[in-house]
Protein backbone atom coordinates (compact mmCIF):
# COMPACT_ATOMS: atom_id res chain seq x y z
CA UNK A 1 0.00 0.00 0.00
CA UNK A 2 2.98 2.29 0.57
CA UNK A 3 3.42 2.59 -3.19
CA UNK A 4 -0.12 1.95 -4.37
CA UNK A 5 -1.62 4.93 -2.53
CA UNK A 6 0.77 7.56 -4.00
CA UNK A 7 0.26 6.00 -7.46
CA UNK A 8 -3.49 6.09 -6.94
CA UNK A 9 -3.33 9.75 -5.93
CA UNK A 10 -1.21 10.52 -9.03
CA UNK A 11 -3.69 8.72 -11.29
CA UNK A 12 -6.81 10.36 -9.84
CA UNK A 13 -5.35 13.87 -9.63
CA UNK A 14 -3.79 13.55 -13.09
CA UNK A 15 -7.06 12.63 -14.76
CA UNK A 16 -9.00 15.24 -12.80
CA UNK A 17 -6.59 17.94 -13.96
CA UNK A 18 -6.99 16.83 -17.59
CA UNK A 19 -10.78 16.85 -17.22
CA UNK A 20 -10.90 20.25 -15.53
CA UNK A 21 -9.14 21.83 -18.51
CA UNK A 22 -12.06 20.89 -20.76
CA UNK A 23 -15.01 20.99 -18.35
CA UNK A 24 -15.85 24.50 -17.11
CA UNK A 25 -18.55 23.15 -14.81
CA UNK A 26 -18.67 22.46 -11.09
CA UNK A 27 -17.02 20.56 -9.50
CA UNK A 28 -14.20 20.37 -12.06
CA UNK A 29 -13.67 24.14 -12.40
CA UNK A 30 -12.76 24.24 -8.71
CA UNK A 31 -10.11 21.54 -8.76
CA UNK A 32 -7.21 23.69 -9.89
CA UNK A 33 -7.65 26.07 -6.96
CA UNK A 34 -8.13 23.15 -4.61
CA UNK A 35 -4.99 21.48 -5.91
CA UNK A 36 -2.97 24.66 -5.49
CA UNK A 37 -4.22 25.09 -1.91
CA UNK A 38 -3.31 21.50 -1.09
CA UNK A 39 0.17 21.95 -2.54
CA UNK A 40 0.70 24.99 -0.27
CA UNK A 41 -0.51 23.12 2.81
CA UNK A 42 1.52 19.96 2.15
CA UNK A 43 4.62 22.02 1.30
CA UNK A 44 4.23 23.74 4.68
CA UNK A 45 4.49 20.39 6.42
CA UNK A 46 7.28 19.25 4.12
CA UNK A 47 9.53 22.14 5.19
CA UNK A 48 9.71 20.50 8.64
CA UNK A 49 11.03 17.35 6.96
CA UNK A 50 13.64 19.40 5.11
CA UNK A 51 14.79 21.31 8.19
CA UNK A 52 15.00 18.11 10.25
CA UNK A 53 17.04 16.46 7.51
CA UNK A 54 19.42 19.44 7.33
CA UNK A 55 19.87 19.59 11.11
CA UNK A 56 20.32 15.85 11.46
CA UNK A 57 23.02 15.72 8.77
CA UNK A 58 24.79 18.80 10.17
CA UNK A 59 24.67 17.61 13.81
CA UNK A 60 26.00 14.19 12.84
CA UNK A 61 28.85 15.84 10.94
CA UNK A 62 29.79 17.89 14.01
CA UNK A 63 29.40 14.91 16.37
CA UNK A 64 31.59 12.66 14.22
CA UNK A 65 33.98 15.52 13.39
CA UNK A 66 33.65 14.55 9.73
CA UNK A 67 35.56 16.39 7.01
CA UNK A 68 34.30 19.97 6.77
CA UNK A 69 32.46 19.82 10.10
CA UNK A 70 33.17 23.51 10.67
CA UNK A 71 30.73 24.39 7.89
CA UNK A 72 28.08 22.31 9.64
CA UNK A 73 28.64 24.38 12.81
CA UNK A 74 28.01 27.56 10.79
CA UNK A 75 24.78 26.06 9.40
CA UNK A 76 23.54 25.20 12.90
CA UNK A 77 24.48 28.59 14.35
CA UNK A 78 22.90 30.38 11.38
CA UNK A 79 19.75 28.34 11.75
CA UNK A 80 19.49 29.03 15.48
CA UNK A 81 20.18 32.76 15.15
CA UNK A 82 17.68 33.29 12.32
CA UNK A 83 14.97 31.17 13.96
CA UNK A 84 15.56 32.76 17.36
CA UNK A 85 15.52 36.28 15.91
CA UNK A 86 12.30 35.58 14.02
CA UNK A 87 10.45 33.74 16.79
CA UNK A 88 11.50 35.51 19.97
CA UNK A 89 13.03 38.95 19.29
CA UNK A 90 11.08 40.41 16.36
CA UNK A 91 7.63 41.09 17.75
CA UNK A 92 5.81 37.91 16.83
CA UNK A 93 3.71 38.29 13.68
CA UNK A 94 5.44 41.55 12.74
CA UNK A 95 8.85 39.90 12.42
CA UNK A 96 9.27 41.17 8.84
CA UNK A 97 8.79 44.85 9.74
CA UNK A 98 11.73 47.28 9.41
CA UNK A 99 13.71 47.66 12.63
CA UNK A 100 13.30 44.10 13.88
CA UNK A 101 16.41 41.90 14.34
CA UNK A 102 15.01 39.51 11.71
CA UNK A 103 14.71 42.37 9.22
CA UNK A 104 18.22 43.57 10.07
CA UNK A 105 19.80 40.15 9.50
CA UNK A 106 17.80 39.64 6.32
CA UNK A 107 18.81 42.93 4.69
CA UNK A 108 22.36 43.20 6.01
CA UNK A 109 23.58 39.61 5.79
CA UNK A 110 21.29 37.41 3.75
CA UNK A 111 20.44 39.92 1.01
CA UNK A 112 24.06 40.97 0.19
CA UNK A 113 25.16 37.31 0.22
CA UNK A 114 22.39 36.45 -2.21
CA UNK A 115 23.30 39.36 -4.48
CA UNK A 116 26.97 38.33 -4.36
CA UNK A 117 26.14 34.83 -5.53
CA UNK A 118 24.07 36.20 -8.38
CA UNK A 119 26.80 38.65 -9.33
CA UNK A 120 29.37 35.86 -9.64
CA UNK A 121 27.32 34.78 -12.65
CA UNK A 122 28.89 37.59 -14.69
CA UNK A 123 32.36 36.07 -14.28
CA UNK A 124 31.09 32.58 -15.03
CA UNK A 125 29.41 33.84 -18.20
CA UNK A 126 32.78 35.26 -19.29
CA UNK A 127 34.70 32.05 -18.61
CA UNK A 128 32.00 29.85 -20.19
CA UNK A 129 31.85 32.12 -23.24
CA UNK A 130 35.61 31.97 -23.64
CA UNK A 131 35.48 28.16 -23.73
CA UNK A 132 32.42 27.99 -25.97
CA UNK A 133 33.53 30.57 -28.52
CA UNK A 134 36.81 28.95 -29.45
CA UNK A 135 36.51 28.08 -33.15
CA UNK A 136 37.46 24.39 -32.80
CA UNK A 137 35.10 23.07 -35.44
CA UNK A 138 32.42 24.17 -37.91
CA UNK A 139 29.61 24.35 -35.33
CA UNK A 140 31.71 26.27 -32.80
CA UNK A 141 32.75 28.71 -35.54
CA UNK A 142 29.09 29.32 -36.44
CA UNK A 143 28.34 29.89 -32.74
CA UNK A 144 31.24 32.34 -32.53
CA UNK A 145 30.08 34.28 -35.59
CA UNK A 146 26.47 34.43 -34.38
CA UNK A 147 27.69 35.63 -30.97
CA UNK A 148 29.85 38.35 -32.52
CA UNK A 149 26.95 39.68 -34.61
CA UNK A 150 24.57 39.53 -31.66
CA UNK A 151 26.87 41.19 -29.16
CA UNK A 152 27.82 43.95 -31.58
CA UNK A 153 24.24 44.38 -32.80
CA UNK A 154 22.96 44.90 -29.26
CA UNK A 155 25.46 47.62 -28.33
CA UNK A 156 26.01 51.24 -29.47
CA UNK A 157 29.40 50.15 -30.86
CA UNK A 158 27.59 47.99 -33.44
CA UNK A 159 25.47 50.96 -34.55
CA UNK A 160 28.57 53.11 -34.84
CA UNK A 161 30.57 50.54 -36.85
CA UNK A 162 27.80 49.74 -39.33
CA UNK A 163 26.18 53.18 -39.65
CA UNK A 164 27.46 53.60 -43.23
CA UNK A 165 26.11 50.26 -44.49
CA UNK A 166 22.73 49.74 -46.19
CA UNK A 167 19.91 49.27 -43.63
CA UNK A 168 19.62 45.49 -44.14
CA UNK A 169 23.35 45.00 -43.50
CA UNK A 170 23.58 47.04 -40.34
CA UNK A 171 24.64 44.97 -37.34
CA UNK A 172 21.47 45.78 -35.41
CA UNK A 173 19.31 44.36 -38.18
CA UNK A 174 21.53 41.31 -38.66
CA UNK A 175 21.28 40.53 -34.94
CA UNK A 176 17.48 41.01 -35.08
CA UNK A 177 17.31 38.62 -38.05
CA UNK A 178 19.34 35.98 -36.16
CA UNK A 179 17.02 36.29 -33.16
CA UNK A 180 13.78 36.36 -35.17
CA UNK A 181 14.43 33.53 -37.61
CA UNK A 182 17.12 30.87 -36.89
CA UNK A 183 16.90 31.34 -33.11
CA UNK A 184 13.09 31.35 -32.94
CA UNK A 185 12.80 28.39 -35.32
CA UNK A 186 15.24 26.31 -33.29
CA UNK A 187 13.59 27.28 -30.02
CA UNK A 188 10.12 26.38 -31.29
CA UNK A 189 11.34 22.99 -32.48
CA UNK A 190 12.72 22.29 -29.00
CA UNK A 191 9.47 23.55 -27.42
CA UNK A 192 7.34 21.18 -29.52
CA UNK A 193 9.58 18.29 -28.46
CA UNK A 194 9.32 19.35 -24.82
CA UNK A 195 5.52 19.58 -24.98
CA UNK A 196 5.29 16.08 -26.42
CA UNK A 197 7.77 14.80 -23.83
CA UNK A 198 5.64 16.32 -21.07
CA UNK A 199 2.46 14.73 -22.49
CA UNK A 200 4.18 11.36 -22.82
CA UNK A 201 5.67 11.46 -19.29
CA UNK A 202 2.38 12.66 -17.79
CA UNK A 203 0.49 9.89 -19.53
CA UNK A 204 2.95 7.30 -18.21
CA UNK A 205 2.50 8.69 -14.68
CA UNK A 206 -1.29 8.95 -14.73
CA UNK A 207 -1.74 5.50 -16.22
CA UNK A 208 0.54 4.03 -13.57
CA UNK A 209 3.09 2.78 -16.13
CA UNK A 210 5.83 4.91 -14.60
CA UNK A 211 6.38 4.17 -10.94
CA UNK A 212 10.06 4.86 -10.37
CA UNK A 213 9.29 8.23 -8.77
CA UNK A 214 7.51 6.52 -5.87
CA UNK A 215 10.17 3.88 -5.50
CA UNK A 216 8.49 1.36 -7.78
CA UNK A 217 10.19 -0.58 -10.54
Amino acid at each position, binding site marked *: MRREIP*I*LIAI*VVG*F*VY*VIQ*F*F*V*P*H*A*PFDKFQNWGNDW*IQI*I*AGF*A*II*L*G*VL*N*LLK*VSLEKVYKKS*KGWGYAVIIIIGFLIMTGAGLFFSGGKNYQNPGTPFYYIFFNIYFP*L*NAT*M*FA*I*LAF*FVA*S*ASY*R*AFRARNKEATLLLLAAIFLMLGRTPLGDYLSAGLPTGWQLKNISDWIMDFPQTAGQRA*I*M*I*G*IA*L*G*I*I*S*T*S*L*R*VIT*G*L*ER*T*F*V*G*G*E
Partner: protein
Amino acid sequence: MNNRKISLVILISAIWLTLCSQILLAQEAAPPTGTKFDYHWFDTNRLNVFITLAIVFSAILWFIARAKKGKSLFIRRIAGLDAIEEAVGRATEMGKSVLYIPGIHDMNDIQTVASMIILGNVAKTIARYDIPLIVPIRQPFVVPVAEEAVRQGYLSAGRPDAFMKDNIRFISDEQFAYAAAVNGIMLRERPAANLLLGSFYAESLLLAETGASTGAIQVAGTANIHQLPFFVVACDYTLIGEELFAASAYLSREPKLLGSLKGSDLAKALIVLAIIIGTILETIGVKWFTKLFVVQ
Protein backbone atom coordinates in the same frame (compact mmCIF):
# COMPACT_ATOMS: atom_id res chain seq x y z
CA MET B 1 -0.83 -3.13 -12.26
CA ASN B 2 -3.01 -6.19 -12.62
CA ASN B 3 -6.73 -6.09 -13.43
CA ARG B 4 -7.76 -6.33 -9.79
CA LYS B 5 -5.67 -3.31 -8.86
CA ILE B 6 -6.93 -1.33 -11.85
CA SER B 7 -10.53 -2.10 -10.84
CA LEU B 8 -9.75 -0.97 -7.31
CA VAL B 9 -8.21 2.27 -8.61
CA ILE B 10 -11.24 2.97 -10.82
CA LEU B 11 -13.68 2.18 -8.00
CA ILE B 12 -11.93 4.41 -5.47
CA SER B 13 -11.58 7.19 -8.07
CA ALA B 14 -15.29 7.00 -8.86
CA ILE B 15 -16.24 7.13 -5.17
CA TRP B 16 -13.88 10.01 -4.54
CA LEU B 17 -15.10 12.01 -7.53
CA THR B 18 -18.74 11.39 -6.61
CA LEU B 19 -18.17 12.58 -3.05
CA CYS B 20 -16.29 15.68 -4.21
CA SER B 21 -19.01 16.44 -6.74
CA GLN B 22 -21.73 16.18 -4.13
CA ILE B 23 -19.88 18.46 -1.73
CA LEU B 24 -19.13 21.04 -4.37
CA LEU B 25 -22.55 20.93 -6.00
CA ALA B 26 -24.08 21.51 -2.57
CA GLN B 27 -21.90 24.60 -2.22
CA GLU B 28 -22.97 25.81 -5.67
CA ALA B 29 -26.55 26.60 -4.69
CA ALA B 30 -26.33 30.15 -6.02
CA PRO B 31 -25.63 30.27 -9.77
CA PRO B 32 -22.21 31.80 -10.45
CA THR B 33 -21.79 34.67 -12.84
CA GLY B 34 -19.10 34.74 -15.45
CA THR B 35 -18.54 33.43 -18.92
CA LYS B 36 -21.25 31.91 -21.04
CA PHE B 37 -19.63 28.52 -20.53
CA ASP B 38 -20.31 28.39 -16.80
CA TYR B 39 -22.99 25.75 -17.15
CA HIS B 40 -21.55 23.81 -20.06
CA TRP B 41 -20.05 20.40 -19.58
CA PHE B 42 -17.51 20.93 -22.32
CA ASP B 43 -15.58 24.05 -23.33
CA THR B 44 -16.03 24.02 -27.10
CA ASN B 45 -13.29 26.64 -27.48
CA ARG B 46 -10.87 23.90 -26.51
CA LEU B 47 -12.19 21.26 -28.88
CA ASN B 48 -9.04 21.46 -31.04
CA VAL B 49 -6.84 20.86 -27.96
CA PHE B 50 -9.05 17.93 -26.99
CA ILE B 51 -8.81 16.33 -30.45
CA THR B 52 -5.02 16.85 -30.59
CA LEU B 53 -4.61 15.40 -27.11
CA ALA B 54 -6.84 12.45 -28.01
CA ILE B 55 -4.69 11.73 -31.11
CA VAL B 56 -1.44 11.96 -29.10
CA PHE B 57 -2.85 9.82 -26.27
CA SER B 58 -4.13 7.23 -28.76
CA ALA B 59 -0.78 7.09 -30.58
CA ILE B 60 1.08 6.58 -27.29
CA LEU B 61 -1.37 3.93 -26.03
CA TRP B 62 -1.28 2.12 -29.40
CA PHE B 63 2.53 1.89 -29.34
CA ILE B 64 2.45 0.77 -25.71
CA ALA B 65 0.01 -1.99 -26.67
CA ARG B 66 2.30 -2.99 -29.57
CA ALA B 67 5.28 -3.06 -27.24
CA LYS B 68 3.38 -5.25 -24.78
CA LYS B 69 2.77 -7.74 -27.60
CA GLY B 70 6.52 -8.02 -27.97
CA LYS B 71 7.11 -5.99 -31.17
CA SER B 72 10.64 -4.62 -31.22
CA LEU B 73 10.90 -0.82 -31.18
CA PHE B 74 13.90 1.09 -32.48
CA ILE B 75 14.98 4.07 -30.38
CA ARG B 76 17.77 6.35 -31.60
CA ARG B 77 20.92 6.62 -29.54
CA ILE B 78 20.98 9.51 -27.06
CA ALA B 79 24.62 10.33 -26.35
CA GLY B 80 23.83 12.21 -23.13
CA LEU B 81 22.09 9.22 -21.61
CA ASP B 82 24.81 6.80 -22.65
CA ALA B 83 27.24 9.20 -21.00
CA ILE B 84 25.60 8.69 -17.61
CA GLU B 85 26.94 5.13 -17.49
CA GLU B 86 30.33 6.42 -18.67
CA ALA B 87 30.30 9.06 -15.92
CA VAL B 88 29.48 6.47 -13.25
CA GLY B 89 32.25 4.23 -14.59
CA ARG B 90 34.73 7.07 -14.37
CA ALA B 91 33.70 7.84 -10.81
CA THR B 92 34.24 4.17 -9.94
CA GLU B 93 37.72 4.14 -11.44
CA MET B 94 38.62 7.28 -9.51
CA GLY B 95 36.96 6.02 -6.32
CA LYS B 96 34.99 9.24 -6.03
CA SER B 97 31.34 10.11 -5.60
CA VAL B 98 28.64 11.06 -8.10
CA LEU B 99 26.69 14.26 -7.51
CA TYR B 100 23.09 14.24 -8.73
CA ILE B 101 21.35 17.65 -8.80
CA PRO B 102 17.61 17.27 -9.48
CA GLY B 103 16.91 20.92 -10.30
CA ILE B 104 15.37 23.53 -8.05
CA HIS B 105 11.67 23.05 -8.59
CA ASP B 106 9.14 21.15 -6.54
CA MET B 107 7.37 17.88 -7.31
CA ASN B 108 4.56 19.72 -9.11
CA ASP B 109 7.00 20.38 -11.97
CA ILE B 110 7.03 17.53 -14.46
CA GLN B 111 10.78 18.03 -14.94
CA THR B 112 11.34 17.15 -11.28
CA VAL B 113 9.18 14.06 -11.72
CA ALA B 114 11.27 13.11 -14.78
CA SER B 115 14.44 13.78 -12.77
CA MET B 116 13.29 11.51 -9.93
CA ILE B 117 12.62 8.76 -12.48
CA ILE B 118 16.16 9.11 -13.85
CA LEU B 119 17.53 9.26 -10.28
CA GLY B 120 16.02 5.84 -9.59
CA ASN B 121 17.77 4.39 -12.63
CA VAL B 122 21.05 6.15 -11.85
CA ALA B 123 20.95 4.88 -8.25
CA LYS B 124 20.52 1.35 -9.56
CA THR B 125 23.65 1.70 -11.72
CA ILE B 126 25.66 3.37 -8.96
CA ALA B 127 24.68 0.72 -6.40
CA ARG B 128 26.31 -1.94 -8.58
CA TYR B 129 29.63 -0.05 -8.55
CA ASP B 130 29.53 0.75 -4.82
CA ILE B 131 30.33 4.45 -4.94
CA PRO B 132 28.62 7.25 -2.99
CA LEU B 133 25.71 9.09 -4.59
CA ILE B 134 25.13 12.60 -3.23
CA VAL B 135 21.77 14.27 -3.92
CA PRO B 136 21.49 17.90 -2.71
CA ILE B 137 17.88 19.08 -2.73
CA ARG B 138 16.30 22.52 -2.70
CA GLN B 139 12.64 21.66 -2.10
CA PRO B 140 11.76 19.82 1.11
CA PHE B 141 8.92 18.03 -0.66
CA VAL B 142 11.42 16.38 -3.01
CA VAL B 143 13.46 14.88 -0.14
CA PRO B 144 11.23 11.86 0.65
CA VAL B 145 10.65 11.19 -3.06
CA ALA B 146 14.38 11.22 -3.79
CA GLU B 147 15.06 9.01 -0.76
CA GLU B 148 12.50 6.49 -1.95
CA ALA B 149 13.79 6.52 -5.55
CA VAL B 150 17.41 5.99 -4.44
CA ARG B 151 16.47 3.37 -1.84
CA GLN B 152 14.55 1.40 -4.47
CA GLY B 153 17.48 1.73 -6.90
CA TYR B 154 19.85 0.21 -4.34
CA LEU B 155 17.30 -2.46 -3.51
CA SER B 156 16.86 -3.40 -7.18
CA ALA B 157 20.63 -3.73 -7.52
CA GLY B 158 20.67 -6.05 -4.50
CA ARG B 159 22.65 -3.60 -2.37
CA PRO B 160 20.18 -2.17 0.20
CA ASP B 161 23.03 -2.07 2.75
CA ALA B 162 24.95 0.45 0.62
CA PHE B 163 22.11 3.00 0.68
CA MET B 164 23.11 6.06 2.70
CA LYS B 165 20.08 8.14 3.60
CA ASP B 166 22.20 11.08 4.76
CA ASN B 167 23.59 11.57 1.27
CA ILE B 168 20.16 12.81 0.20
CA ARG B 169 20.47 16.22 1.70
CA PHE B 170 18.05 19.09 2.01
CA ILE B 171 20.14 22.24 1.54
CA SER B 172 17.99 25.36 1.53
CA ASP B 173 14.88 26.49 -0.27
CA GLU B 174 16.63 29.74 -1.19
CA GLN B 175 17.90 29.62 -4.76
CA PHE B 176 21.37 31.11 -4.32
CA ALA B 177 21.96 29.65 -0.89
CA TYR B 178 21.32 26.29 -2.54
CA ALA B 179 23.67 27.14 -5.42
CA ALA B 180 26.40 28.23 -3.00
CA ALA B 181 26.06 25.05 -0.94
CA VAL B 182 26.14 22.78 -4.01
CA ASN B 183 29.19 24.64 -5.31
CA GLY B 184 30.76 24.02 -1.90
CA ILE B 185 30.04 20.29 -2.17
CA MET B 186 31.63 20.25 -5.64
CA LEU B 187 34.76 22.00 -4.42
CA ARG B 188 35.17 20.11 -1.14
CA GLU B 189 34.08 16.60 -2.07
CA ARG B 190 35.29 16.77 -5.71
CA PRO B 191 32.78 14.33 -7.24
CA ALA B 192 34.04 12.63 -10.38
CA ALA B 193 30.70 13.08 -12.11
CA ASN B 194 28.01 15.74 -11.85
CA LEU B 195 24.54 14.98 -13.18
CA LEU B 196 22.36 18.09 -13.44
CA LEU B 197 18.94 16.90 -14.53
CA GLY B 198 15.74 18.81 -13.90
CA SER B 199 14.43 22.34 -13.83
CA PHE B 200 17.14 25.01 -13.56
CA TYR B 201 17.18 28.79 -13.63
CA ALA B 202 19.87 31.40 -12.95
CA GLU B 203 21.95 28.95 -10.89
CA SER B 204 22.53 26.67 -13.89
CA LEU B 205 25.75 28.31 -15.01
CA LEU B 206 26.99 28.81 -11.44
CA LEU B 207 26.72 25.06 -10.89
CA ALA B 208 27.93 23.95 -14.32
CA GLU B 209 30.97 26.23 -14.38
CA THR B 210 32.04 25.26 -10.87
CA GLY B 211 31.66 21.62 -11.85
CA ALA B 212 33.73 22.18 -14.99
CA SER B 213 36.45 23.85 -12.93
CA THR B 214 36.73 20.74 -10.74
CA GLY B 215 37.32 18.56 -13.79
CA ALA B 216 34.24 16.41 -13.24
CA ILE B 217 32.48 14.82 -16.19
CA GLN B 218 29.15 16.62 -16.44
CA VAL B 219 25.85 15.52 -17.93
CA ALA B 220 23.06 18.08 -17.82
CA GLY B 221 19.49 18.16 -19.01
CA THR B 222 16.61 20.56 -18.72
CA ALA B 223 13.45 21.60 -20.51
CA ASN B 224 14.03 25.25 -19.57
CA ILE B 225 15.06 26.55 -22.97
CA HIS B 226 16.71 29.70 -21.59
CA GLN B 227 19.17 27.62 -19.55
CA LEU B 228 20.13 25.18 -22.30
CA PRO B 229 22.89 27.37 -23.80
CA PHE B 230 24.64 27.53 -20.42
CA PHE B 231 24.61 23.77 -20.07
CA VAL B 232 25.72 23.26 -23.67
CA VAL B 233 28.83 25.38 -23.14
CA ALA B 234 29.73 24.21 -19.64
CA CYS B 235 28.87 20.49 -19.66
CA ASP B 236 30.24 17.50 -21.54
CA TYR B 237 26.80 16.25 -22.57
CA THR B 238 23.44 17.97 -22.58
CA LEU B 239 19.99 16.42 -22.79
CA ILE B 240 18.00 18.92 -24.79
CA GLY B 241 14.34 19.30 -23.84
CA GLU B 242 12.46 16.13 -24.72
CA GLU B 243 15.54 13.92 -24.19
CA LEU B 244 15.13 14.56 -20.46
CA PHE B 245 11.65 13.05 -20.61
CA ALA B 246 12.82 10.15 -22.76
CA ALA B 247 15.49 9.21 -20.23
CA SER B 248 13.50 6.83 -18.05
CA ALA B 249 12.32 4.75 -21.01
CA TYR B 250 15.77 4.82 -22.58
CA LEU B 251 17.60 3.82 -19.42
CA SER B 252 15.16 1.14 -18.28
CA ARG B 253 14.58 -0.27 -21.83
CA GLU B 254 11.19 -1.43 -20.63
CA PRO B 255 9.00 -2.08 -23.71
CA LYS B 256 5.93 -0.33 -22.25
CA LEU B 257 7.90 2.86 -21.66
CA LEU B 258 9.65 2.65 -25.02
CA GLY B 259 6.20 2.39 -26.60
CA SER B 260 5.30 5.78 -25.15
CA LEU B 261 8.42 7.26 -26.78
CA LYS B 262 7.42 5.92 -30.18
CA GLY B 263 3.94 7.38 -29.67
CA SER B 264 5.48 10.83 -29.05
CA ASP B 265 7.58 10.42 -32.19
CA LEU B 266 4.48 9.71 -34.27
CA ALA B 267 2.80 12.78 -32.79
CA LYS B 268 5.89 14.80 -33.68
CA ALA B 269 5.72 13.57 -37.27
CA LEU B 270 2.05 14.65 -37.43
CA ILE B 271 2.97 18.09 -36.11
CA VAL B 272 5.71 18.46 -38.73
CA LEU B 273 3.18 17.46 -41.40
CA ALA B 274 0.69 20.03 -40.09
CA ILE B 275 3.41 22.72 -40.10
CA ILE B 276 4.33 21.94 -43.73
CA ILE B 277 0.67 21.92 -44.86
CA GLY B 278 -0.03 25.10 -42.88
CA THR B 279 2.99 26.89 -44.38
CA ILE B 280 1.98 25.97 -47.94
CA LEU B 281 -1.67 26.93 -47.43
CA GLU B 282 -0.81 30.23 -45.72
CA THR B 283 1.63 31.04 -48.54
CA ILE B 284 -1.12 30.63 -51.15
CA GLY B 285 -3.58 32.61 -49.03
CA VAL B 286 -5.73 29.80 -47.58
CA LYS B 287 -6.39 30.65 -43.92
CA TRP B 288 -8.89 28.09 -42.58
CA PHE B 289 -6.27 25.42 -41.83
CA THR B 290 -4.15 27.56 -39.50
CA LYS B 291 -7.30 28.79 -37.73
CA LEU B 292 -7.98 25.20 -36.67
CA PHE B 293 -4.97 25.42 -34.37
CA VAL B 294 -5.84 28.66 -32.56
CA VAL B 295 -6.06 27.95 -28.81
CA GLN B 296 -8.32 30.05 -26.57
